[in-house]
């Protein structure tokens, strides 16, 4: 029983790898309930009027792509499914590449570049640039990602500042991210914001949702699976869920085993005394 307290860490690693690998190759297809927040985010986008202008701000870094990527793809697909005008932008260097990756992962539904969507790429400057963009976007961005002047792009002719946007959709993993948008877009210009976050940062944003400064803050991995169900386009989000379930149970089992081992060891030590 004392051995329960001293399991080699490599056995723990191997257990996790085997469990996740088996679930990845042979998913059990566990049922998934749609949460209130995911439903709220979905309905908010569904209720947008035709022609509404949306800022899609992809603030993931490479590290966050694994967990936030499926949600980012699901959000963009949903926006493209609807008759909306989408401006894509990112405030982190990795955003430029990840926006291109996201665009190649979605079905564009026949939408035309420059008319229905435009990619502004990465804009340096973090929250400062975000604030400048909100006040007068042409002071911060002059061309799209491909170098075309904004005034030559049809859909950008009517967009000058944050006031022209109906919604910000922001899959992100940190600064400036959702907090930057709350401070620089929601509070001064009252633009609603939907965000997806790494699950461990969602508790920080629940107060903002309850205070009304955010529409919804979705925990990226779980919500991506739910969102894929809602837009009827299964992807990586759903594929990862079974592994998350079994992996969680494995961790709980190890914690229990560790505690049993410790209790046994302390009782044996007390008995010997």
């Amino acid at each position: 029983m004392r051995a329960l307290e001293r399991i080699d860490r490599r056995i723990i690693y191997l257990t996790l790898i085997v469990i996740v690998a088996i679930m990845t190759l042979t998913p059990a297809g566990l049922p998934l309930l749609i949460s209130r927040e995911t439903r709220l985010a979905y309905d908010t986008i569904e209720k947008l009027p035709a022609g509404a202008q949306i800022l899609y701000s992809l603030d993931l870094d490479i590290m966050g792509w694994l967990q936030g990527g499926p949600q980012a793809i699901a959000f963009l697909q949903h926006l493209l499914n609807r008759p909306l005008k989408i401006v894509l932008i990112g405030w982190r260097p990795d955003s430029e590449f990840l926006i291109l990756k996201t665009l190649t992962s979605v079905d564009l539904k026949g939408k035309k570049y420059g008319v229905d969507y435009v990619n502004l790429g990465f804009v340096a400057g973090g929250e400062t640039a975000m604030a400048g963009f909100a006040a007068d976007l042409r002071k911060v961005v002059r061309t799209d990602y491909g170098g075309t002047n904004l005034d030559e792009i049809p859909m950008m002719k009517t967009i000058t500042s944050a006031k022209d946007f109906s919604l910000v959709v922001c899959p992100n993993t940190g600064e400036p991210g959702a907090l930057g948008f709350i401070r620089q877009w929601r509070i001064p210009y009252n633009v609603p914001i939907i965000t997806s976050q790494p699950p461990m940062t969602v508790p920080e944003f629940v107060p903002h949702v309850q205070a009304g400064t955010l529409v919804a803050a979705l925990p990226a991995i779980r919500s991506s699976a739910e969102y894929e169900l809602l837009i009827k386009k299964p992807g990586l989000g759903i594929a990862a869920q079974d592994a998350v379930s079994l992996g969680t149970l494995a961790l709980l089992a190890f914690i229990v085993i560790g505690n049993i081992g410790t209790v046994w060891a302390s009782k044996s030590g007390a008995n010997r005394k």
Partner: protein
Amino acid sequence: MIGALITSVMVVMVWSWLYRHNIFFSFAEHTIVGIAAGYAMAVGIGNLQKLAYEPIVKGTDYSLLFPIVFGVLLFSRFSRVGSWLASYPLALIIGTGTGVAMRVIIDAQVVRQIIATIPLLAKPVGLDLFNGVIIVVTLVTTVVFFLYSAEHKGLVGRAARIGKFAVFVVLGNLYGSAISTRIGHVAGQMVVLLIESAPVSFGIVAIAVAAILVDILRRRSKQ
């Protein structure tokens, strides 16, 4: 096919650290750091061209020469003699960033949070009022827990103790979320390795497992 091979090899090299630190992991590590830095600069060059170079060359905005000179001053930090010059552009970045964040932080993170909390106590008797009372109590006691200008005795001490438990609830919440996040990471990478990079990845994994087994046997025979 080439992409799948490169991905499989790199992923297996990184995960070889789980067995023990080795040269393959170090190689992968150096590759990742190098590409990260190079990519940031490549993106920066592209952006600078659109943002500053073209307006200056076309004669539309010569004032952009000033931030370019200022930005170049940042590199003086590598010089022992002139490193003080880097303080000026850094001051501009830090000062602007601090001002931009500070001007709304009280509104977003204090005032609106308090405004959202107070009406919770005006709810009709029932679950909503109960929840509202819990939120207010945990908010106040957490603030008291971090209050260092008063001794934690008597009423303040009892409030701080409740606040301590409230903080542990949040920490448990964050830990639980972190676990989900991290397992999701592993699951995502498994999909990349075992599904998107298959069947090449199976061969690479088999080679890696064989190498590890050989190493284990070799070490045991040495002992």
